[in-house]
């Protein structure tokens, strides 16, 4: 009995030695969040998109700063304010050997808004398209009802599938692998929900060949376990490196780190709408207060001056953040060159509060999620302490994001901390959702949980949204941001999150602002 146990243990350890000598062209990646579906049009969620992009491609792609670049479409141009023409890449083959043509694009765009039971569909990206025609096999004409300058950005979110699949496949056909036919650099091999996805190289790929024969994506949601898996060599690349481990990993010769500022801003939203009885506003000693000081832009500016962003980034974010003065980092499209992060200025804040008629401050509760953003609860705590120290007695209440966002959207808070990732990679995304006047029909201000509203901002924004010319639109967007954030402090920008990847030595990954982890951009250094 003892001998059999011993030999079984011996076998266990011996096979671990064998595993070390695996092939060099295999890559294992540790993902931070499990995917929910392989259907590229079912559930719009960062991990789903990141994974599906290995198999499926978009007409227009984006570079690491999210500027559009050619994908399955070689070029695109606007013919008039309402009409666009796309030239498709020739000679691209689907994984089943058929040729990629304009018909596939039309069928895909038809399927996108019609995926049954989708909890978060991609319909938003194709809704502006009212008509789509194939001029020939490789040329498409798209019409929109209104001028829609973001069409290239929207198309960069829509993954192409073959016509035969688009017309018949259901979501479960993708999850079973049957419908996993794309044009991308990898072919689907296996998916075990909650555990792993396995892919192999597509040797007939039209673009640059990836460096890896086989790629295995392991889902390791626990951050310390993900780091341990990297240190143990079970995975060669991990995403979402926890801030607490970064200092140690930097010293470790077995790994290297790469990071990039992301398109996600962490900000404070203030109830700037209710004239009186904002739910969590009190006097400085906690008695009910009728007036709503947050309506006054000077008070909002004062809050911004009370927060020492550099300290929060250095101490709480362990350097994994960049102080924010507007809605997106300056490298992105439509950002302002003049908006800079607000300096920590307690004296200036006091003066502004006094000018606004609150020399003794007031009381408020800050609400924040505690499982959504990097170190969100700790950041909120620091913000509340800075505010309390500088004249606004601030209580803090954190909660899981499933409770937080429901309550926030019902306008139950006076002051909240949240984050916004600009998926389009330009300033109109946060402007339209966070700062435009709430308008249900037009879909504006969808996440404007402070109900900020300014006619001037709305006017510049709506002009920008119908300006096809990129240069002019960029200037308009920057101007809207300067007014909404700089002048009126519709939100208080705190910081942009930095996303970090860690690889084993000998492998590099070029960090991206959109937080996607792409195996085809992982390269051996030799």
């Amino acid at each position, binding site marked *: 009995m003892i001998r059999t146990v011993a030999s*079984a243990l011996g*076998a*266990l350890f011996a*096979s*671990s030695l064998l*595993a*070390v000598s695996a092939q060099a062209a295999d890559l294992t990646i540790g993902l931070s969040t499990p995917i*929910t*579906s392989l259907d590229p049009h*079912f559930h*719009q969620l960062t991990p789903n998109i990141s994974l599906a992009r290995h198999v499926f491609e978009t007409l227009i792609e984006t570079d690491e700063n999210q500027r559009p670049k050619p994908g399955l479409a070689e070029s695109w141009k606007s013919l008039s304010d309402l009409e666009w023409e796309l030239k498709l890449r020739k000679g691209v083959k689907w994984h089943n050997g058929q040729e990629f043509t304009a018909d596939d694009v039309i069928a895909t765009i038809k399927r996108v808004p019609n995926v*049954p*039971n*989708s*909890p*978060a*569909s991609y*319909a*938003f990206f194709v*809704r502006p398209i009212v008509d789509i025609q194939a001029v020939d096999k490789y040329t498409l004409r798209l019409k929109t009802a209104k001028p829609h300058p973001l069409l290239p950005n929207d198309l960069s979110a829509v993954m192409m599938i073959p016509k035969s699949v688009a017309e018949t496949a259901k979501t*479960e056909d993708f*999850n079973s692998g049957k419908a996993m036919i794309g044009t991308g650099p990898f072919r689907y091999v296996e998916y*075990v*929900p*909650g*555990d*792993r996805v396995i892919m192999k190289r597509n040797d007939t790929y039209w673009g640059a060949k990836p460096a890896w024969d086989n790629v295995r994506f*392991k*889902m*390791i*949601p*626990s951050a*310390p*376990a*993900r780091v*341990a*898996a990297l*240190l*143990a060599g*079970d995975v060669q690349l991990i995403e979402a490196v926890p801030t607490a481990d970064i200092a140690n990993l930097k010293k470790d010769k077995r790994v290297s780190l790469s990071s990039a500022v992301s398109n996600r801003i962490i900000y404070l939203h203030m109830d700037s709408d209710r004239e009186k009885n904002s739910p969590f506003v009190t006097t400085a000693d906690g008695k009910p207060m009728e007036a709503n000081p947050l309506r006054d832009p000077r008070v909002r500016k004062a809050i911004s001056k009370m927060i020492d962003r550099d300290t929060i980034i250095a101490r709480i974010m362990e350097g994994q953040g960049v102080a924010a003065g507007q809605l997106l980092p300056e490298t992105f499209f439509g950002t302002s060159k003049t908006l800079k992060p607000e300096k920590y200025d307690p004296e200036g804040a006091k003066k502004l509060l006094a000018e606004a008629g609150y020399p003794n401050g007031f009381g408020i509760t800050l609400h924040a999620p505690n*499982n959504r953003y990097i170190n969100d609860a700790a950041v909120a705590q620091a913000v509340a302490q800075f505010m309390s120290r500088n004249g606004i007695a601030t209580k803090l209440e954190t909660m*899981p*994001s*499933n*409770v937080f*966002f*429901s*309550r926030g*959207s019902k306008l139950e808070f006076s002051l909240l901390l949240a984050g*916004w*990732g600009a*998926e389009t990679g330009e300033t109109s*995304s946060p402007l339209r*959702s966070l700062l435009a006047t709430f308008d*249900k*029909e037009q*879909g*504006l201000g*969808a*996440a404007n949980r402070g109900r900020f509203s300014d006619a001037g901002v709305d006017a510049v924004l709506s002009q920008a949204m119908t300006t096809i010319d990129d240069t002019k639109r960029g200037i308009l967007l920057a101007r809207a941001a300067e007014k909404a954030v700089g002048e009126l402090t519709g939100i208080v920008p705190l910081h942009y999150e930095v996303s970090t990847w860690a690889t084993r030595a000998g492998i590099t990954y070029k960090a991206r602002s959109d937080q996607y982890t792409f195996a085809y951009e992982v390269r051996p250094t030799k």
Partner: protein
Amino acid sequence: MMVFVLRRLAQTALVLAITSLLVFGGLYLIGDPVEILVNPAADQIEKDRASKALGLDKPIHEQYLGFVTGALSGDLGNSFVYNRPALEVISERMPATLELAFLAMVIAVTLGVPLGLYAGLRPDSPVSKAIMAGSILGFSLPTFWVGLILIMVFAVQLGWLPSTGRGPTTEFLGLQLSIFNVEGLRYALLPAINLALFKLSLIIRLTRAQVREQSLLDYIRFARAKGLANRRVIGVHLLKNIMIPLVTVIGLELGSVIAFAVVTETIFAWPGMGKLVIDSIFQLDRPVVVAYLLVVVFMFIMINLVVDLLYSTLDPRVRLSELHG
């Protein structure tokens, strides 16, 4: 006995109905799933569409009625997130959790009972003291910490075992299981040990206490006075009598190890049900949460039933009709 089982089953139905009502109402109070599921940039048109697609636009009592109607015909609804039947989503992950729980309980029982026996029979030996001290550690160290230490030592430092994940599976009794091949067992070993540690300590301490108590009773002295071999005294008379409380505890612990292995599953990225249900709660994926809790409640009731039936086998004095459920 038949009456006893039937009465238990009737009670089960009642408990399941109450559970479903509580979970349904509880999740409704937490928040609106649409707020979590849709893209933050989505406008009201998209939110309304999602709400309608998931049947969340109806009033809550209609939603519950729809659920009950479906449940009576065995359909617990489709997951919001996965768009598949909730029961299917759960049963797909169940083998992973079951095999881990099974392995952990095997480790806990095969080590725990002998060690506890030894410590109980020789309470003053240094080995017994070491066992008891170790069991205190097993009790008090938090699972997530022990799990990380196991990974750091055996996977990162020594490199003997893989750090996370589940190994290749083979088919066994129609289930895809990984613990019946060497490679799969390598993956399962660390999480199983982590999961077993607490139960092991519990079983050691319980066995020891029982042995100490029973050893002083008359029937043991009588058996010894009769000149029975030590092995027979312990193996037959003593063991049989300490088994009754042990079986109860092991049964309950088996249930909890299956239902609440979430910490271990998360740390070792083990694709089981525990992780699934936590994710589902965060995403307010109501059908999965409701189905999961119904399955768990059902499982607990069944384990208890089996434990009660075992009682009467182990101790002929216990009559089932006297156990009022």
